[in-house]
């Protein structure tokens, strides 16, 4: 009997990850519904990536969270408004109790509207919400890893609309200029932002060419297909350590998994009502148990 092939191993893994993703998507719509505020659209679109990252890719120690994360891979969420997704993934990973998802956006909660270190929530290493700041932080953390001789990797996630912020391009320049090759950044390339399609609000132009011109190793990935996400992240890891930062342009659908939230920017920051919650949950099987 030969050892299981790689494809067998990853297909099992894909199924498990899809199952987690379904539960995380349920958490997202339930959290946003419960407090009648928050951002379901981008959260649902990035779910597959975040689940793959936290349950398959990251080398991390959720039970023993430390701010410095020495010897661990670190993740920075720059588009902090997709906090429901971040919180659900952190809770399921074991950073804090699942029940705490009930407190999302409530008074005295560690689960603030946008992620923060200020309330001491394990798993969060920087406040985000005001857009465009996360890449700079990720570059700094990656340089600290290098100074410490720590071979772990830094991951970061950014919205595509967020790329309209000038600071992102300052950071892009710095990452390439300082040869930050232990950094894998991902852009959620869903083409939508609060006011409409990105192309209508302020076109980003040829993103692939822009990041390439800034000195990054650029790849594209289908972000709502778990197998593609796993393969893409694996490929990205293979590109690290070669003198350049790595950018994944990740095609996603805002609102993915809830049919009436897909195909529009309108669910960027709107909470479902009771009937919409029911309709959404019917499309998202409860796989791990609701919080």
């Amino acid at each position, binding site marked *: 009997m030969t050892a299981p092939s790689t494809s067998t191993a990853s297909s099992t893994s894909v199924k498990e990850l899809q199952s987690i993703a379904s539960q995380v998507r349920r958490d997202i719509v339930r959290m946003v519904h419960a407090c009648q505020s928050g951002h379901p659209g981008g959260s649902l679109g990035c779910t597959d990536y975040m689940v793959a990252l936290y349950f398959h890719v990251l080398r991390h120690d959720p039970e023993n969270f430390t*701010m410095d994360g020495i010897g661990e891979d670190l993740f920075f969420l720059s588009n902090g408004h997709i906090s429901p997704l971040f919180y659900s993934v952190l809770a399921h990973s074991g950073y804090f109790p699942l029940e705490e998802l009930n407190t999302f956006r409530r008074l005295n909660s560690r689960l603030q509207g946008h992620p923060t270190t200020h309330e001491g929530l394990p798993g969060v290493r920087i406040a985000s919400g005001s857009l465009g700041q996360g890449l*700079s932080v990720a*570059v700094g953390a990656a340089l600290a890893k290098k100074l*410490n001789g720590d071979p772990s990797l830094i991951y970061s996630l950014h919205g595509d609309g967020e790329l309209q912020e000038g600071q992102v391009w300052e950071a892009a320049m710095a990452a390439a200029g300082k040869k930050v090759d232990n950094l894998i950044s991902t852009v959620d390339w869903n083409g939508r932002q609060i006011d409409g399609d990105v192309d209508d609000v302020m076109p980003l132009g040829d993103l692939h060419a822009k990041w390439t011109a800034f000195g990054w190793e650029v790849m594209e990935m289908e972000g709502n297909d778990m197998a593609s996400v796993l393969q893409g992240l694996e490929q990205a890891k293979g590109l690290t350590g070669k003198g350049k930062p790595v950018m994944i342009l990740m095609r996603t659908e805002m609102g993915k998994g809830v049919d009436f939230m897909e195909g529009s920017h309108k669910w960027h920051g709107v909470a479902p009502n009771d009937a919409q919650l029911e309709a959404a949950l019917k499309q998202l099987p409860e796989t791990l148990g609701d919080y």
Partner: protein
Amino acid sequence: MTTYPVLDKKDTRSGFGEGLLEVGKQDDRVVALCADLTGSLKMDAFAKEFPDRFFQVGIAEANMMGMAAGMTIGGKIPYTGTFANFSTGRVYDQVRQSIAYSGKNVKICASHAGLTLGEDGATHQILEDIGLMRMLPGMAVVVPADFNQTKQATMALADHEGPVYLRFGRPKWPVFIPADMPFEIGKAQVLSEGTDVTLIACGHLVWKALEAAAELEKQGIHAEVINMHTIKPLDEEAVLASVGKTGCVVTCEEHNRYGGLGEAVAQVLTTHHGVPQEFVAVNDSFGESGTPEELLKKYGLDTPDVVAAARRAIKRK
């Protein structure tokens, strides 16, 4: 009164440069970032001695603040260096979210603050930075008086856990603080004791306050001079102990009268011990080109202005 001989004339930014090099030797967690002003900030010596721990980030201050915040994750103690204007107003949201709200141990070191930047004019002479930084929860604000104290303060920042704004300047200025005078963040220094009026000053104006105290002494007025090198956390005990004796105050700062040292002191007085206060500060205006001394005179921050303010304060008792 206690007198302080002028030991030398040196710029406070050079005190920062020497302090940074020294603290870099003592603590290998110290890293420095600079936005294309290495020469102006006197960071060359650190950059030469520790090339691996020095990060030239170019003219991109917003990114520098974010990178500094990120470098604390992993245990580094980043010192950022650029002009005061570009350390505060230009990057306020980055400092607010990525550093202050995130509770990051970043030392924001700001040179060329205030009118004494001189000829470059109002675009660069920020007079609002103390107020901006004071308003951020958890941010300490340190404004040392001379070269020696700026060196001491720069080194002391490394032992202070949490974000700090360190403000210093461009011109050569009297060095009068003895190099061995103990320095502690948040602990004011009574440079000279008196009974008639309290002069509370920070930064370059501490020297002006001492000059004013000498002039007042000739007029038979005994002024107490306090070097309030830390605006936040403010040494409230020192303020109250002094006004308990003197019964009136003059605050002196190279800053807009709104938001700075004067308002910080006024808050203590109105809460605990209301006494007359006069403000030697820029009267809600921008600066302009000129030499440092010309500008201090024109904008009412010179020695005679402190003397006149002291006499007004005493009259109001």
